[in-house]
């Protein structure tokens, strides 16, 4: 059995991404975005009988309680970090395809309200013992910087090539009212002149932590055909998981997309050449670049020349991250990775307004 065409997204919603949400909680934002997605999908709250959350900061039961959902027959928390959003859609599709539920709410939100202190992360890993004494850089920058150095050393990739990615996505964000960076275009030179946070990562190659929320409704293909929206059908999916600490990876320039993408393409019956536009996880320019290579959209090691020769804006020959992505919209924690699913569906559904891509039948999303 395959998921190909068996399920679809029939409703989407997204709150504006912004630096913080004073007076708000993450569950409060989740309630707001759920109210909107119910409206967009033209269903009733009572129709929701499944839920998928990111499972790290919001457990399914917490959302079910806060939202007052009474009919839940399927629940899952993905715990896949940045990949939680894309993973959640595949879980939801599996659930409706197997009859566990009919309408699955996928919802993620993060307020980033400084008055609400999140519980300590305590990953139980080795960071405190073997990394912190040596002074890692801020956030997740350390591992990605080490990947970036290896890609430059192995393939000759240059920062000025990856800066194009950042500038093109910022161009796209100018047409996204939900972006925290609307009205703030940047050039390649701006990226290259921004300060090092930690070499080789410059400020404009990192996401900005933000608050926000997003939601989607997934249902069976039969029900989707009756939707008032143009459905976004799931044609294939695949997964990959790497070691948590980058220094425990055998190869710093290959991501788990090398495993997830072939599974998804095989299920779908399409190849990378068929893809018309892409929405890819982009916490850093380098990570997005590695994933684009590993997906098969760009040959391994050739991401630099690709960005030199390809217009990846929403107007271009191969649009990437048409809403600006996380780099140019902001990263509302784990809802940040979910934005790529939402924007892919939005484009397929023809709801992208001024940034609507010309060819919108086949999108590759990476969470």
């Amino acid at each position, binding site marked *: 059995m395959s998921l190909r065409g068996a399920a679809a997204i029939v409703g989407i919603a997204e709150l504006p991404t912004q630096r913080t949400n004073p007076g708000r909680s993450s569950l409060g934002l989740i309630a707001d975005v759920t109210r909107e997605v119910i409206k967009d999908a033209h269903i009733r709250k009572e129709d929701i009988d499944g839920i998928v959350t990111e499972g790290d900061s919001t457990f399914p039961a917490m959302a079910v309680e806060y939202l007052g959902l009474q009919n839940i027959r399927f629940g899952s928390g993905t715990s896949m970090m940045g990949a939680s959003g894309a993973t959640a859609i595949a879980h939801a599709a599996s659930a409706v395809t197997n009859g566990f539920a009919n309408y699955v709410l996928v919802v993620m939100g993060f307020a980033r309200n400084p008055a609400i202190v999140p519980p300590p992360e305590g990953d139980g*890993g*080795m960071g405190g*013992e073997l990394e912190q004494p*040596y*002074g*890692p850089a801020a956030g997740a920058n*350390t591992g990605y910087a080490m990947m970036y150095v290896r890609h430059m050393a192995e393939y000759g990739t240059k920062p000025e090539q990856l800066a194009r990615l950042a500038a093109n996505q910022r161009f796209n964000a100018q047409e996204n009212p939900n972006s925290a960076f609307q009205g703030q275009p940047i050039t390649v030179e701006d990226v290259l002149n921004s300060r*090092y946070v*930690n070499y080789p990562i410059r400020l404009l190659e990192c996401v900005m932590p933000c608050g926000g929320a997003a939601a989607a409704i997934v249902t069976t293909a039969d029900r989707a055909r009756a939707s008032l929206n143009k459905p976004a059908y799931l044609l294939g999916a695949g997964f990959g998981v790497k070691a948590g600490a980058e220094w425990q990876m055998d190869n710093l320039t290959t991501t788990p997309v090398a495993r997830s993408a072939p599974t998804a393409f095989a299920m779908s019956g399409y190849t990378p050449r068929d893809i018309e536009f892409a929405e890819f996880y982009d916490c850093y320019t380098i990570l997005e670049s590695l994933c684009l290579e590993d997906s098969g959209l760009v040959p391994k090691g050739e991401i630099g020349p690709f960005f030199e020769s390809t217009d990846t804006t929403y107007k271009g020959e191969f649009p990437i991250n048409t809403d600006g992505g996380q780099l140019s919209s902001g990263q509302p924690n784990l809802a940040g990775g979910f934005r790529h699913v939402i924007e892919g569906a939005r484009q397929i559904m023809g709801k992208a307004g001024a940034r609507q891509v010309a060819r919108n039948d086949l999108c590759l999303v990476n969470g």
Partner: protein
Amino acid sequence: MTSEYAKPVPTAGINPEITQPFWDAAKRHELSVPYCSGCNRHFFYPREACPNCLSPDWSWSTVSGKARLYSWTTVFQPGDTRFSEETPYVYAMVQLDEGPRMIGNVIDVDANHYLSPDKVNTRLEAVFEDVTPEWTLVKWRPIEDEAKSGRDE
């Protein structure tokens, strides 16, 4: 050595009993890592089963302390402000000649020279810093006379 060391010392990870001999060896200024008798390979970090073959049959092995710089980041904005006075500095992923990789700092260098990928594969030797009476950190220093011949990948 001072007990007023102001930066973080190691805090317990997954199983501090398993890693303690690594730190004990560092205190003796020796680099010791697990060697698996199931697959005859060194590994790091220390864990209850070999990450290559999952065998629990491994023992501690004192290694050469020689390594090469696999990758790094030159830190201008540390995650922990206790490192701010030292910026920029080199936070490194090193590959031991025996195979395993570990995290440390490259010291006794001008970090502003570590802003180009051509530093990959720089030959390194372990340096043991007794930061408190309890803790010795393992850091890395370029090997001068091997500097030209170390790029062997």
